[in-house]
């Protein structure tokens, strides 16, 4: 079976600063893949390169089509939703307006309204705060908003940039339980970029370790979890 997302020899740079030096990785349909690594490893850059937000070189195939030269708008229209670094809240808009922006590339109004209710089903707190300014939400609520907003696209693939960042352990658990439901019940494939290896490896079926723009190790999430040497040297726990 060909994977949903296949990346080969991905290079990316910010101006003259090269950040990615030939990444190879893949993600199965309905799978969960995680990229683990510390600060400056190139995780955020990888996600931005995938959706065409920065200059990149290499092969990227999504659902059998090359997207290495596609624009961000086209990639979003193909069903790739991005939960950006730092949550990307539109702070002065209301919670509901934020969610509606997740569906801005869609035209099917009725289905969008239904999806809004679906998101409120997953995150009842967002419904309670629907007309509140999004900038006033707590960190955890903003992360829920970011995931809910990505869901509004009805994505095939969701790119998650450190969803656990800066959140209390209990909130992280809650969020990852919902991500697991989205993956199992709705069949959304997840590409998860994380520093928090413990929660990421629990959710993922496949993992890659990234260091200064290169993949240094890859394997089944289960194996990495049990491999003490890798845990010690790369994950630090």
């Amino acid at each position, binding site marked *: 079976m060909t994977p949903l997302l296949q990346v080969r020899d991905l290079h990316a740079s910010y101006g003259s600063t090269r950040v990615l030096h030939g990444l190879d990785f893949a993600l199965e349909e309905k799978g969960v893949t995680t990229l683990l690594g510390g600060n400056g490893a190139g995780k955020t850059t990888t996600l931005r390169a995938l959706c065409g937000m920065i200059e990149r070189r290499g092969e990227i195939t999504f659902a059998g089509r090359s997207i290495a030269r596609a624009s961000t708008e086209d990639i979003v229209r193909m069903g790739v939703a991005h939960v950006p670094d730092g949550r*990307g809240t539109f702070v002065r808009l209301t919670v509901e307006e934020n969610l509606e922006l997740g569906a801005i590339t869609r035209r099917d109004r009725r289905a969008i309204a239904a999806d809004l209710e679906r998101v409120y089903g997953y995150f009842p707190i967002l419904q309670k705060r629907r007309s509140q300014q999004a900038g006033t939400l707590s960190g955890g609520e903003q992360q829920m908003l970011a995931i809910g907003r990505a869901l509004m696209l009805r994505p095939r693939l969701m790119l998650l940039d450190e969803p656990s960042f800066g959140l209390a352990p209990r909130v992280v658990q809650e969020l990852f339980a919902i991500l697991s439901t989205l993956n199992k019940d709705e069949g959304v494939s997840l590409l998860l970029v994380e520093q928090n290896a413990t929660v990421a490896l629990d959710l993922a079926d496949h993992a890659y370790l990234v260091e200064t723009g290169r993949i240094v190790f890859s394997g089944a999430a289960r194996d990495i979890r049990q491999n003490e040497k890798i845990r010690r040297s790369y994950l630090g726990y």
Partner: protein
Amino acid sequence: MPRLNNPRVTLAIIAVALVLPLVIQNFLTFQLTLVLVYAIAIIGLNLLTGFNGQFSLGHSAFYAIGAYVAAMLMDKADFPYAMTLPVAGIACFVFGFLFGLPALRLEGVYLALATFALAVATPQILKLSPLEHWTGGVQGIVVNKPEAPFGLPLTEDQWLYYFTLLITIVMTVLAHNLVASRTGRAMMAIRDNPIAARSMGINIALYKSLTFGVSALYTGVAGALGAIVVQFVAPDSFTFFLSISLLVGLVVGGVGWIPGAFFGGAFVLFVPNLAESFSKGLSGAVYGVMIIVLIYVLPTGAAGLTRAASRWWRAKA
């Protein structure tokens, strides 16, 4: 942000606006007409700065282009004055859109500088002798004051007031609808978080240039109306100081609140005169102090004041 979505309040304001010129002097009517003209220009600036997060110190240039297009059409081509508005609007939209394209690469202070250059260059270009045949050079162009049509028993000032009021209402409603639309939401998303907006699939370059164009259109229509109302255009009426006045009006009215433009328009028209009545020699200083005090006391402008007032009203009721 408070919206004028209370129909009773809106109707009451419109009723007052309709009756006012019948009971006040002609000169005050003329001044109120100019308030409306400034309000349209400030709405234009608000769409760009308040709703899209792009700075401009160059809106006097768009105002000037609108004014000159209207004056030249009336002077050289005998255009009916009402017909000059759409032409001025379209000309400024195209100019604003094209200016917005290279400005895409600039943000914050850099964009402010680029638009500043536009504001400084425009009056000088209007004075150029090769263009003198059309622009009238330093002298500018004098246009005729239109009379009330259909034999309406109105003075010229009253008629121009009603004409401007109609245009203002239409432009305000259109701006309100634009902001409430999908396009408006995309504009605000870009303001709040450009990277996240892009990852939602919003074409940032397109929306930013379009907003620049629409903003220039509003300011250009205001310029054309201004030319008709004042009956005169000259390069030195459209200096950088006009850009700053519009910016002052924007902040005083409330950034990101459309009805604020009317408060802002009134402020930039009346308050400098008020400052002059305090002291002729120090009018600029008095005006400056007034602005500083206002920003200190009311950092969110008339928008914040209106919001507080309506909250107080509801609490009382």
